[in-house]
């Protein structure tokens, strides 16, 4: 019960305080998110004052139409590959990194904050740093390649570019994931390791039978955060290569269709397809991990 409710201001105060933030959130975040559904059934464009009409399922039909379905399913595929590989590699490495940098080493806190730095620097800077490193005309990566007698145009190489993007995304995002695992590790009571040691457990046993079960809730949180995040992220791809047939993902398509060709009705439909994908994967993963948590 609200103890301030004895006065009139005390009764309406909480709502008065909530109102501006909530209004802002409803107007600019929630309502647009719902309106996307409606927009996906129109042929609205990004140009102001151009009339629009309802077109039913045309936008969805167009996405799956004979002419474009192959390319579009390619994009869906790439979105899934990106999200799954980022999520799995990111979480495995982040957990190992959190164990490695967990305070036994001198300077561990400093190392952790160095790994966290790209999170602060943001996509534009991270993207430019790696464009420089992968500069094909003699960046450090090119020198390394040539010392093995090989050469590559890196981000310009249609086969390699996407792999490099996955690498950069993991490099940039691992700080947050590692920190969440670190917090989980710190909460494990030390007697568990003591008991394991007495029972003759080696490092692998301790990781498998003490650490991993004990950080299971953090694993669930991290997996869900990273799969949802990586299904929706496209900024790093935009900065590194732009929207290319070999590197594009659904979210980048939404942006480039909506603001390149300005076909915002169609872009809204692609948004919805992306949303369904995110929702299904997140829910399945969440229920699976929750069940695993209790079994571990």
């Amino acid at each position, binding site marked *: 019960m*609200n*103890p*301030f409710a004895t*006065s009139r*201001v*005390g009764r309406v105060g*909480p*709502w008065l*305080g*909530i109102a501006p*933030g909530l209004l*802002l*959130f409803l*107007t*600019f975040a*929630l309502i*647009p*998110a719902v*309106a*996307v559904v409606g927009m996906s059934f129109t042929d609205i464009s990004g140009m*102001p004052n151009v009339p629009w009409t309802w077109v039913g399922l045309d936008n969805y039909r167009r996405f799956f139409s004979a002419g474009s379905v192959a390319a579009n399913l390619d994009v869906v595929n790439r979105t899934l590959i990106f999200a799954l590989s980022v999520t799995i590699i990111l979480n495995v490495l982040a957990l190992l990194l959190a164990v*490695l*940098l967990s305070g036994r*080493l001198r300077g561990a806190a400093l*190392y952790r*904050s160095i*790994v*966290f730095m790209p999170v*602060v*620097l*943001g996509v*534009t*800077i991270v993207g*430019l*740093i*790696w464009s*420089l490193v992968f500069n094909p*005309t*003699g*960046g450090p990566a090119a*020198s390394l390649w040539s010392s093995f007698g090989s050469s590559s145009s890196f981000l310009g190489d249609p086969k390699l570019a996407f792999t490099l993007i996955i690498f950069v995304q993991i490099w940039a995002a691992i700080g947050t994931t590692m*920190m*969440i695992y*670190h*917090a989980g590790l710190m*909460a494990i009571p030390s007697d568990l*390791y003591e008991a394991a040691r007495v029972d003759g457990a080696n*490092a692998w046993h301790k990781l498998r039978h003490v650490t991993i079960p004990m950080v299971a809730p953090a694993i669930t949180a991290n997996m869900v955060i990273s799969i*949802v995040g990586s299904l*929706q992220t496209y900024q790093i791809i935009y900065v590194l290569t732009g929207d290319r047939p070999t590197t594009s993902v659904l*979210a980048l398509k*939404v*942006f480039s269709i*909506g603001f390149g060709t300005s076909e*915002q009705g169609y872009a*809204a439909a692609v948004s*919805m397809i*992306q949303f369904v994908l*995110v*929702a299904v994967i997140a829910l399945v993963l969440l229920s699976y991990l929750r069940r695993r948590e209790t079994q571990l």
Partner: protein
Amino acid sequence: MTVLHDQARTAGRLTPGPPGERRRRQRTPWRLVNYLLAFAVVALYLLPLLFLLNTALKRPGEFSADPVGLTDGLALGNFVDAWTQGNFGALVANSVLYAVVCAAVGTVLSVLIAFPVARNYVRWSRPLRVLFVLSLFLPNAIVAQFQLVLKLGLYDTRLGYMLLMTAGLGVGPLLVMGYLRSLPRELDEAAAMDGCGYFRFVWTFVFPLCKPVLGAVFILQVIGVWNDIIGATIYLASPELRTISLGLFTFYGEYGNNQWELLAAATLIVAAPLILLYVFTQRLFISGAIAGSLK
């Protein structure tokens, strides 16, 4: 959050390694391997930055002649050239304005939402909490947002951009709610009993008591606005409204092929405030941000 954090800290202090191993000293080869691995990881993060710095200090043309070698001189002129050619003065002023206003307003609004909701002082507290959690999973609404902003006549205005960036409060209220759980409710009751009004209580007690998490919320928002590139690309068409990240990206389009010395200097100019901010506040916002996200 504090509870968790304090536990974490004591646990950390009691266990410099699995107990017993301290006395035994960890077997040296493993220790060495651990250090080597840690240094490799640190190198993977610091070398690209150092390479950026090295490039920024090269004389024009030196990069294409010898990209990897250490710079001969300290061509600080690159920073001046990048600053003037990219017109960074105006861009930085815009970004500082957007970042500070959005972060300050966003932080205050986060507290005003989080406090009564966390304490169940309003009806529908639970649905509100769920709403903010769900907001992290909403569909990609950039096209609908654009239509709305267009209709409201806010396209290509500072106000429109700032409203949008503030509305993406996202985790702010959630972080504060998580933190408020560690503050005793008795304080509210005692203050109310003594006749302290609602807003005075929020202002003189809740704000100061939440300082650590508010620091985190503020800085996360500053970083978000400073680094935003998509929103700035969509909504800020006029050159005089543009942000520094957008400016840097445009600069990349112009100089990315041949003048990496300038581009590296420009990148460092944009990164410097973030790095400074990070160095001075990292403890605060790593703990605040992380503990909150576990909730």
